[in-house]
């Protein structure tokens, strides 16, 4: 569920096709995001999942899997 919802957000934020987005995809290496795109993506994730991700945690989110795990562990 989280993955499906996240895929839509990533596709929209990074302007990539949904089927390009795999669990192991790295935002910067595979999905062509730069560091600011990732910051913006994290902001979108915070809004969509009603989370507040502290900077030091956000820095560790580099792949789709990192994001899914963070969201699953912290969803309210």
């Amino acid at each position, binding site marked *: 569920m989280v993955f499906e919802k996240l895929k839509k957000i990533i596709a929209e934020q990074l302007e990539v096709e949904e089927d390009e987005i795999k669990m192991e995809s790295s935002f910067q290496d595979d999905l062509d995001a730069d560091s600011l795109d990732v*910051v913006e993506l994290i902001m979108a994730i915070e809004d969509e999942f009603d989370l507040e991700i502290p900077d030091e945690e956000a820095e560790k989110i580099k792949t789709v899997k990192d994001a899914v795990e963070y969201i699953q562990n912290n969803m309210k």
Partner: protein
Amino acid sequence: MNLNGKIALITGGSRGIGKAIALKLASLGANIVVNYTKSDAKAKEVIKLAEEMGVRAIAVKADVSNKDDVENFINKVLDEFGRIDILVNNAGITRDNLLMRMKEEEWDDVININLKGTFNVTKTAIRSMIKQKSGSIINVASVIGITGNQGQCNYAASKAGIIGFTKSIAKEVAKKKVRVNAVAPGFINTDMTDKLPDKVKEEYLTKIPLNRLGEPEDIANAVAFLASDLSSYITGQVLIVDGGLLI
């Protein structure tokens, strides 16, 4: 030039240059948020004047050098208006002294309010601008940040720091269509410069080609230009407003 419906936030907006900026932006149709630290009465006065121009205006007390204060402040703005279009980092102080006499506290106070305050507010407010993919940030620097001044090493360092900060953030967020510029006022008639002895003022006057001290409105006009779409191709710049002092 019009700023109809824009949300503009001005730190240190209850008096001096900040007040002139707040009222100028309000006169162009922007809703304004006036941040202040000391005088409730002065902030309320600015709010009243802005409301008379037909815009929405609120005052929020917050110490820009305090991260928690700034977060509460920005949250209040977002609760009230939902977005931020224009941010003017104007809050600033002086604690003049010769280096050999300068206390650590005098150094820290100036750096914390002028430079760290600019960092705190920009970092917290820029989120809204990045999301909406538009925004204009104007940092109030000073010609002193370019030339230096004896007795003002803390102030000069803070203002030079603001210039470096401005250029860096301009590069970081240009892709998101957020512009970041600075204005560098010269000698402006405010409480801050009022403290100086007449002799110093007269000496300055001889060095200003336009042969007058600047008024807060001179700075407000430059800020309004940088806040508006008329400057949509300008970012990372330092606009010197000094009557020609630095020529």
